[in-house]
């Protein structure tokens, strides 16, 4: 029983402390692709992060970075059905804000 009392707090700390996330916003943009075009399209993804320690950070253009990465993933086509996610990975005295953009790249005929 004494062993249990020692290990329970340790186990609880490990179980609940790690890998917690908070999803702030998700938005799905419009898509004009037919099912055939959707099947032919290529799924692309761009992710950008902002690390923050106790609220101090230097990266302030991570949303622009995610946008340019997404645009570069589909250089000669158009991007439809873009899902934008803004979330935070919670951490020890610090956290990482994440912008993740996923889309469907279709080539022009």
């Amino acid at each position: 029983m004494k062993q249990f009392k020692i290990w329970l707090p340790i186990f609880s700390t490990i179980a609940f402390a790690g890998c917690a996330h908070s999803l702030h916003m998700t938005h799905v943009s419009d898509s004009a692709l037919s099912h055939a075009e959707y099947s032919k399209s290529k799924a692309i993804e761009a992710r950008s992060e902002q690390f923050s320690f106790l609220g101090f950070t230097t990266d302030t253009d991570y949303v622009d970075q995610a946008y340019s990465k997404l645009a570069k993933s589909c250089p000669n086509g158009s991007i439809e059905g873009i899902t934008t996610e803004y979330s935070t990975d919670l951490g020890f005295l610090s956290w990482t804000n994440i912008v993740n953009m996923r889309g469907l790249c279709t080539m022009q005929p």
Partner: protein
Amino acid sequence: MNRYLLCLFSSFLFVSCAQLHHVQIGEVVSEPNGNYQRFDIKVSDTGVDIGEATQVAKIFMNQRQRDTSDAVAGIVGLFQMGPRTGNPVYSSNYTSNLIELIYAKCPSGNITGLTSIRETRKYPVISGEIVKVTGYCITKKGA
């Protein structure tokens, strides 16, 4: 003991509320010769409120155990710092296949009024961290 369980059970039944965090609507297309069929997609994960979990656990503890649970909650809090919307969840990709789900609901791809909603369904200790997408699938009349 039964009294505690009854209280807990009643709380889950009657004490819940929904909180809206964000809503955004897309393009609205009008097609006079179309049938508009509404669709809803809901994905969610379970959030945990460590503070509330500690408070509930304290009911069953003695003074020494309560002090220990406070310490555990404090340490967990240090590992979960950052801006929050709703309660923290332990999965980061539960919304990763929304576009696939939309095309499964509307194979024609002719969609209007796509609305993205981020909300929390709050219960004692846990919560449903929900992303809901609603829209209208346009099909040709008679199709």
